[in-house]
């Protein structure tokens, strides 16, 4: 059993001209690499879902009289907290801006059980690793008199819906 290490000497460029064999070699190599790249891209497109399933981002949460003045009601299913002070209404997100856990209500506002982020009554960060305040969502009064929240539209903290 022996191994012949002698190199194939078929690829000889003569006088700067590219030999046919080398040219074909380059083309074949480029073709293989290109196919590999294409299949990688198509695999990526395949695992990236086009349709996603989730909850509607826009929903109604009930009549204003369901939330008497002074209410801070966490609607866990919707991931929001409805606040009513006098005639002013707001919807604050209860999804922690740090890593997505659900915050709970605490004496001073909101607190996250996963990594200890703390927020005040208005969702401003008062401690912990959260990088941003809890977002406020657009809240409107629908024609049928129900409160409608749209989680796709963030509004400036402190902007209430006045009834």
């Amino acid at each position: 059993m022996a191994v012949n290490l002698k190199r194939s000497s078929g690829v000889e460029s003569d006088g700067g001209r590219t030999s046919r064999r080398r040219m074909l070699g380059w083309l074949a190599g480029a073709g293989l690499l290109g196919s590999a790249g294409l299949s990688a891209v198509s695999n990526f497109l395949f695992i990236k879902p086009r349709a996603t399933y989730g909850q509607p981002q826009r929903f109604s949460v009930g009549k204003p009289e369901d939330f008497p003045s002074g209410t801070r009601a966490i609607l866990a299913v919707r991931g929001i907290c409805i606040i009513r002070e006098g005639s002013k209404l707001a919807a604050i997100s209860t999804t922690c801006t740090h890593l997505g856990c659900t915050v709970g209500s605490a004496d001073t506002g909101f607190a996250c059980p996963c990594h200890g982020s703390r927020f005040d009554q208005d969702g401003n960060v008062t401690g912990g690793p959260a990088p941003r305040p809890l977002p406020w969502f657009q809240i409107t009064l629908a024609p049928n008199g129900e409160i409608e929240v749209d989680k796709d539209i963030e509004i400036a903290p402190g902007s209430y819906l006045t009834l």
Partner: protein
Amino acid sequence: MSRPTPPKSSLLATLMDVPKNVWNSIFRNPLPSNDLERSATTFTNFFLHIHPVKVHKNSLRPAYTFGLGLISFFLFVILTVTGILLMFYYVPSTTQAYDRMLDLRGTVAFGTLLRNMHRWSAHGMVAVVFLHLCRVFLTGAYKKPREFNWVVGVILFLLTLFLSFTGYLLPWDQLAFWAITVGTAIAGYAPIVGKDIQFLLMGGTSVGQEALLRFYVLHVAVLPAILTLMIAIHFWRIRKDGGLSRPADADPSPSLEAMENAVAPKASVLEPKKLYGLQGLVRGPLTKVGQVPDNTVFSWPNLFLAELFTFVVTLSAILILSLIFNAPLEEPVNALHPPNPAKAPWYFLGLQEMVSYSAFWGGIGMPTIFVLLLLGTPYVDRSPKGVGKWFSRDRLLTNTIFIAFVVANIIFVIIGTFFRGANWSFVTPW
């Protein structure tokens, strides 16, 4: 192998010989009784031929390796077998997964035992792979020519962590749901591609059925396949890099004449126009052309008995643990309320503690720096000194830095485990 051939006419004699002939057709060699047969058995048996015929005495010293690499591999074997068995009952569905866990506990024969074995082997594998990494570092075994095998080893360590992460999501209990939520959110902090990776991992914008299915496929197919390939490369390279690392003075210095016969040249210095025997190409001092004194012994039975012993001890330990302790199962998923505090398994608590200071630096920045430091070590530390000895004086600085990192991580794990209470605020455990 000369065996008596029966007379052609005797059908009975042929039939009588069938068991013996079947046996001999499977096993090419008799049970070894001399060195030639020991060699032949090792390299003609499929399962044994991954081993060298002769192995260095230093590689067999229990106090050098503690068998950690081998234990990691055996744990992986146990995990594969128990994992495949669990797949017969598991359904990756948000409505069924948890009930299937309860079924494993309540109605499936040996269900609890298998789940326990799978869980404790997984914990064990994370721990042992990490200890193996420490052993290789502290003995300087990553040095030339083993740099790339160290890189493969670091990748194996990361794959082990990913496998264990994707695994504990599958019961779809509280731990699972909030771990996916947090884990994918950490991925979202990666620069540029973070949000895309998060979306791909979750298969949508929120954690649910798609995310569970994706992590299931990663856990039972994608990651084990990559891990298996990497293990194969890891083992192959151990052989090609000249066996396990050992101190330079572990081999007797041969005479000059013997050296000339024994040292195999690098392929790059071989004459292209000459014919070489295969032995001339194999690197490392274990393949010899001439008669050179060495410190090797035959793998059969020395190495194989040691491996069998390690396997029996590993399996027994996992069995005993699994008979005594049940694998944890938290409450079923409640997407509205995370448990308070919501804690990861122990080996991720250091990460969770770091993440509780900064999501980017704790979850992406620092881990990336750690991994890059690990990967870069053999290419920065080029000194050939101190290979093959625990805590060598020549490696005082390197080892000290490494141990400092390890201790820091252990402190983070301890803080996360014992000093964090509700809302992840500081508590004292006493």
